[in-house]
């Protein structure tokens, strides 16, 4: 691995965060549930840590969390952290996929609320996705963010 000069300003990363904040603000102003607030919160925290990592006496944790390694040691920690997250999520998502497949195969879980119009026509809007599916996906999303931050903490505190 080549040794690169330290403390370069991550313009690409900051641009992506600003873009993410803009999208979050747009969603927030359009009044859609909590997605806008969530994006704004994640973007603000990420931007704060990124700016903290630009300090001269920045910590290894800040550089791992913002994926801006200063040298080979921090790069190795990031690689290790990502490998850990990858292994955990490979197993987790496979199990989750099997779980969804099992749900899909349960007869009658996808209920249909057909109704009769005043003129006697039966209208069947089709099967509805049970509440458990979007709920599980939201839990997955929350676990994903939690796992990313946890992996950064574990990688930063990992022995060299």
């Amino acid at each position, binding site marked *: 691995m080549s*040794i690169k000069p330290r403390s370069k300003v991550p313009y690409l990363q900051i641009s992506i965060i600003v873009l993410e904040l803009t999208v979050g603000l747009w969603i927030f102003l359009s009044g859609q549930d909590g997605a806008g607030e969530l994006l704004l919160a994640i973007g603000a925290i990420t931007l704060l840590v990124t700016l903290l990592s630009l300090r001269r006496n920045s910590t*290894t944790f800040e550089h791992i969390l913002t994926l801006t390694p200063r040298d080979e040691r921090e790069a190795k920690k990031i690689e290790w952290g990502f490998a850990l997250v990858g292994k955990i999520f490979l197993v987790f998502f496979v199990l989750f996929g099997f779980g969804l497949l099992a749900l899909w195969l349960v007869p009658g879980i996808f209920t249909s609320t057909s109704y009769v119009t005043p003129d006697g026509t039966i209208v069947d809007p089709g099967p509805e996705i049970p509440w458990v599916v979007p709920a599980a996906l939201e839990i997955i999303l929350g676990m994903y963010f939690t796992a990313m931050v946890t992996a950064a903490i574990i990688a930063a505190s990992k022995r060299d």
Partner: protein
Amino acid sequence: MQSILRDLRGKANLSQADLADKLGVSRQTINAIETERYSPSLELAIHIARFFNTTVEEVFHVD
């Protein structure tokens, strides 16, 4: 891996941060090498040896 990096740095009157700046690594990495918590790559080891005008074998050794 053991090293005499701390001694060399002391003789050169450099702080860990100064040496880190000159080598293009973090201060924490210099500290980790000196406290034997991290074994540097061959490339970094060569950079360190060259910086102190010595050889890798002189700077680093194993029991």
